[in-house]
Every structure is written in structure tokens, then in C-alpha cells.
């Protein structure tokens, strides 16, 4: 059966509130906002490009980026919270590359972890299936029962 076409959900009013708050924050503190935007640029891009409903990958990348952001914002705060200081810190490649690398690591982790979990689960399923098939073969032989009919007793492809 063909999947029903997705109906675009009406945007929640909170998105407007969030936009308003972000706009207000940028207007009120442009320097931290600028620095934050630069430092978390990969995370923001990942977040907005993530088409999954929960945006879990984007969220993880942002969270990993946010791990080192407080220290930079604190430094900016102690440096006067000016736009120049903000841009100066944003030009610090070490700082930026560290945070971006961390976000890259977060993205990698977010992409690899499901695969690893899937591997573990499929491995367990394969082992269980082998065990069940062996038990079934024993019962078939002992009680002269017919083999499984749906052809599903073929060995499962290893994960």
C-alpha cells in the first residue's frame, strides 16, 4: 500500500517565540551572539539540515559544540564583550578548529553509534536464530516432525 503523502505540519507558535527571543538576544548582545554563531556554525548547519523529526544528529552536534563554548563566552565576557573581541576570538583558528572538531566528533559519534548498536543487535539475533534452528532440528529428528515450511529456516545472513 502506498504511503500516504505527508501533510506539512503547521509551524508551532513557539518557533516564532524562539525566533523573537533569538533576535532579541542578538540585538541585545551582538558580540556573544556572533561568536556563538561562528563557533557553533557546524552544529547549526547540521541542526537545520537534519530532516529527522527529532533532529537528533543536529542536536548532538550542537551539544558537542556547546561543550567548549562556555569558556569562550566567558573569555569574551571578561574581554569586555565587544564585537572586536568577539571577532578576534572568532579568528582564533585553534579555538574555532577545536570546537568544530569536537562537533565533527559529535557528528561522527551520532552517525556511528546506531550502526554499532545495529551490529550488536543483529549479532545477537543471528546467534539466537542459530540456537533456535539447532533446537528445532533436534526436535524434528526426535519427534519426526516436518521442517519449517516457509523457507525461513534458511540461515540468516550475518549482519
Amino acid at each position, binding site marked *: 500500500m502506498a504511503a500516504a503523502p505527508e501533510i506539512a505540519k503547521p509551524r508551532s507558535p513557539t518557533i516564532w517565540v524562539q525566533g523573537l527571543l533569538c533576535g532579541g538576544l542578538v540585538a541585545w548582545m551582538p558580540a556573544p551572539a556572533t561568536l556563538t554563531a561562528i563557533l557553533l556554525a557546524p552544529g547549526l548547519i547540521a541542526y537545520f539540515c537534519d530532516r529527522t523529526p527529532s533532529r*537528533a544528529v543536529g542536536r548532538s552536534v550542537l551539544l558537542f559544540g*556547546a561543550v*567548549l563554548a562556555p569558556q569562550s563566552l566567558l573569555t569574551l565576557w571578561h574581554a569586555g564583550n565587544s564585537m572586536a573581541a568577539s571577532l578576534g576570538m572568532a579568528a582564533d583558528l585553534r579555538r574555532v578548529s577545536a570546537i568544530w572538531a569536537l562537533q565533527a566528533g559529535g557528528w561522527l*559519534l551520532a552517525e556511528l553509534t546506531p550502526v554499532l*548498536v*545495529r551490529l*550488536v543487535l543483529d549479532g545477537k539475533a543471528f546467534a539466537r536464530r542459530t540456537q*533456535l534452528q539447532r533446537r528445532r532440528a533436534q526436535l524434528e529428528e526426535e519427534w519426526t516432525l516436518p521442517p519449517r515450511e516457509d523457507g525461513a529456516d534458511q540461515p540468516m545472513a550475518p549482519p
Partner: protein
Amino acid sequence: MATPQNARNPAPHSDLIAGLYAVDVATPLADTGGGLDSFAVADRHGSRLPLMAVRARDHAPPRAALALLAAGPIDYVLTPLAHGAAAGPDGTRGYFVICPIPSGPPIWPNGAASIPTWNERTLLDDLLRPAAAALTRLADRTTHRAIRPNNVFRHQPGEPATLGMAWAGPPASLQSAVFEPPYVAVCPPSSRGDGSVADDVYALGVTMLTMALGRIPMAGMDDAAIIGRKLDLGSYAALLGDARLPPLIADLLIGMLAEDPEHRPHPAALIDPHSARGRRVAARPARRAQRPLDIGSTQAWTLRGLADMLGRDPEQAARLLRVGAIDTWMRRNLGDPGLAARLDEVTRAHVRRETSNDGAADSLLVARAIALIDPLAPLWWCGQALWPDGLGPALAEADRPGGNPARVEALRTLIESEGIAAWATLRPDRAETGAAKLAVGNPRGILRQRGWGGGMTALRYSLNPLLPCASPVLAGQTVVRITDLLTALESAAGRTEPRRLAPFDAEIAGFIVGRGELAQLPDLAALAHETDPVRIGALQLRILAGLQTQLHAPPLPQLAAWLAEAASPAIGVWRSRTRRLRAEAAFQELHQTGNLLAMLRLVDDPTSLALDAHQARAAIQDIAAIDRELSALDHGGPGRARFARQAGYEFTTAIALTALTASIVVAAIG
């Protein structure tokens, strides 16, 4: 002595009868067997008493009275010493009765047309007194029923005669119509029954008459003419004809040849002939009608003749009875309105009770009518006469290969419709019929038993305790006792021909029931209707294993191997392959030991079979559960992927949040 009483002790040697007597089939004896083949016998104990073995004919079993004669010898009669199976002259086994050889030749040489007459003294001293003494002692146990001149022996004149062999065939089956009362002679030879001592007295009387006349009375007449003449004139007048006898002999014979058995003197009275002469009971002559009753092409002038004619043609008789022609004839021409009224009452009661007019109903009506018309007459059924205690030999004679199926069917209807009881009820003062004795065996119950647990076959063996089993499996063997059955089957199992047959058939089943082994009755009943080879094999094994246990029979390895072939499908009932293989191996091992019961336990163990079935059901449920789980695993890929993605993201988020928290804490601490 091999009698039914000690029949559970098998003979120690198969070729010796009772473990003592070896039949010398190469030495046949002439004129000693009372009409049956007889052979010399060697007594392994070295007894000097010359013995002979008289061979019973097939389908004419020896008399059950052999058991009663085990109490000891009786003077002036060839008392049996033993009986059993042994090899016959033609190579097949036969059943023999051992008894002493007569001390002399028969008083009537075989084939002689006439002999010198015996005088009164010789008749009394040489024949009557010893025979009466023998019959007196015999009367406590049984009857002789084979007294005739060529079966009475005397060493030499002046010596007492000895009554010959009378035990190796059905009672009176070898008697000619001359030497039997007309009411007995009218029955087929196999249907005459044990009768009473009065019948022996009658035969002794005819024998005396024969010796007194020096010729066989009524010689040259056929049986029907002899019987008809005796019924018309009375036996004494018919037999004597125009001859004259000494007064004492004539008076004795008038009593001994009386038509009513109760009017004949007891043999004890005949030991003193002069005294017996005065005790004669006068019999009322038969009343003759003014005009005869026409029944078909025959005419009845007397009640005796009427009863005989009614019995011979039951359909016509029943028609005449239903329309009231006979009681009308009795009133108008015989002058007996009392008997006519009783007959009318019996006929009306019968018509009220019996709704059908089939052959059995006709015969029942005729049997009741005859019991009223002539209480001395035998039971007439479907046109043939019999005495109830002759039912067993009659059945053995008719129900055999090449026998008389119509007669078998007639006997079946006689038993099913309780014709014997109906007939005996109407002549309650006549106890000599054997009806009461027959009722003890409950033939109707045996006949009604389902499957192989009853029926005519079982009844045949039940009524003939010494009838050999006629199963084709036991061909060439004579199996009379239940203890011999397993041994004979073991022997048959060792030969090729019987192995082509099933080890168990209806004849063997009937034989087992007939010999009173009723513990197997439910299995025998079930076996007849069973079509499943698995159940058939198990049931056969169970029946024979039960017999082996009950009779304490020795190991039967060849029979066990034979049964193993038949019962091997029963091994397949085990659902568990392990148990099946184990049982097969054990089955092979056990049948070599010949222990049928142990074999049975392998194929017929309800507890283990129930456990096996329970475990089989559990295995099926396990398989179903496994299949469900395998199916879930087969179709669980997307679910696992979804879970893996979800779990991976959650894990990543958790790590990120942990790091973020740590970072904030570090930043806050400074």
C-alpha cells in the same frame, strides 16, 4: 490321566498319552473300537493289562464324560484310562482314548446275519446281570449309550459280558435306529445327547432281544421305517414282531423297551431279573383317532405320529396350528378337548408374543406344540430333532469345513430364540433333556458376545470340551486343551506353511473362549473389528502373553519371533525416535528369549505411551514457539534498525550532555 481337571499340567512327552501310553499305530485291532479305529498300546510302566487306543473321528469329539470316568474302573465296562493326542497312522495327529482291550470277541460277530439263539439263563447271567451292574455304577457318573451286540464282548460262554468302548465319539452317534428309543433314533447321530440311563436300559433290552432271537430285529428296514413302526406299534411290538420269547425275558423286555423312559426299570433293579419282572409299569396304549389328520402327503393317526410329522415340516405345522386345524382335529377325531384347549392357549400366547412369522418363530411354535402333544418327543427345530445335551456335538458336526451351514443357522436361531427353554418349560416333569445342564453354560450369552469373544465358534468349543482346535494355523496338530495351544503355536511358528498365515485367527479365539479363558475376552472382542495393524499386532501379543502368564507356559522363542513380525508396527507408535530405536533393539532381544509378556510391555505400556504422547505434544508446542520466535527474528530487521538508531542517538546525546555538564561545571569553578 489327561482330563480337563488336570489339563493345566502339560503332558511330559508329546508322543505319550498322559505320559504313559504309546499308541502303536502299526498294530490296528479289529472289532474292538466300537465302530472306531483302534490300535494296540504300549504301557511305558510295563503294566500287563492289554490296552488299546481308540481314535476319535474328526469333528466328532470324544465325550466330555471322560472326565467323570477318571474316578476309577467299573467292572464289566471298558472304562477309559487316559485320553490325549498322539500321532495317527496317516502321519497326522489324532485324539485317542485309552482303555483295556476286551477280554473276548463281540457277542455278535461283525457281518453275521444270524447267530445261534441264547437261552434264558445265558441272557440273564452272561448279559443282563453284568451289564445291569455296570450300568448301575456308571449311572452315578454318566451314561454308556453304545450298547449293541457288536459292542458287547465276552471271553467265552458262561462268562459275564463287558460293555465296549463308548467314549471316543458323541453319545449314541454309532448306534443304529434299532438299538435306540424312537425318540432318540429320530435325531441325527451327532444330536442324540448323553440321554439317561433309561436309554441304556432300552439298548440293553434290544441287545437281549437280538441275542434271544439270534437275528437283528427289523433287519433290512431303513431308519425312518424303523422309527415309524416303533412309534405306531410301540417298541416292544415293533421289535418282536411275530417271534416268541421265554416269559421272563418277554416280561423284562416289555419294561425295558417301554416308550416312556420313566417306565423302564433302573439297572439296579435288573440285577435281580425275577424281582424286576414284577415291577413293570403298565403303559397306556396310544390313542388312535377316528379319522387321520392330513399333513401334506402324510397322515397322523396318533399324537406320537402327529408330533413327528409336525416336527418334520415346521412351516406346514405352524400354518395348521395358527388356523386351529390341529386342535379342531383333537376335539373332533381324537376326543381330547383338554389337550386341544391347552394347545390352543399355547398357540394364541405364541401369536401374541411373536410378531414375525419367520422360520425361527414357526419352529418355536412347533416346538411348544410338540412339547404339549408328545412330552416324550425330542426338541424339533427347523425340521430336525435333537436333545438339548446333544447341541454341542451337533454344532461340531455342522459347523466345520464342508459342514452344514443351514443346520448351523438353525442351531443359532434355536439358541437366540431360547427355544430350548421354551420347549423344556412345557414339559417340566422331564428332567432328562439336558436343558438345565445346557443352561449352565449360558450358550446365548456366548453367542451374543461381540467379536471373537463369542459367536458360534466360541460356542462350538464351549459345548465340546474335547473338540480339537480347527484353526488352519494348527493344521496337522490336535490341540484340545488350552495348555497345548501355546506349545502347538510354537511348533507351528517353526514351520513355513503356518508362517504364511496370521498367528491368530477366529478359530483360536473361539477355542480360547470355549475353554473358559475369559480374561482375554475384551481383547478378543476388540480384535475382530480392529483394522489398524498396529493395534492388531499389540492385541494378538497381549492375548498370547496373557495366556503364557496364566498357564505358566515355558519360553516360546519361535512364536515370539512370529508375533514380533506381526507386532513390529506397534513399535512405531512411539513418537520419540530415541525410545523407538531403544524399543526396537529391546524387541529384537526379547523375542529371542520367548518372553511374550516382556515383549508386550514394550508395545503396550500405557503409562510410557502417555508420557511419550505428552512429550510429543510438548515438542510440537516447542516447535511452534521456535517458529514464532524465528519469524519474529526474520521480520525484526526494521525494528532493530529503528531501535539501534534511537539508542545510538540517545547514547550520543547522553555523552554530549555529560560533557556539556562537565564543561559548565569546570567553567563555573573557574
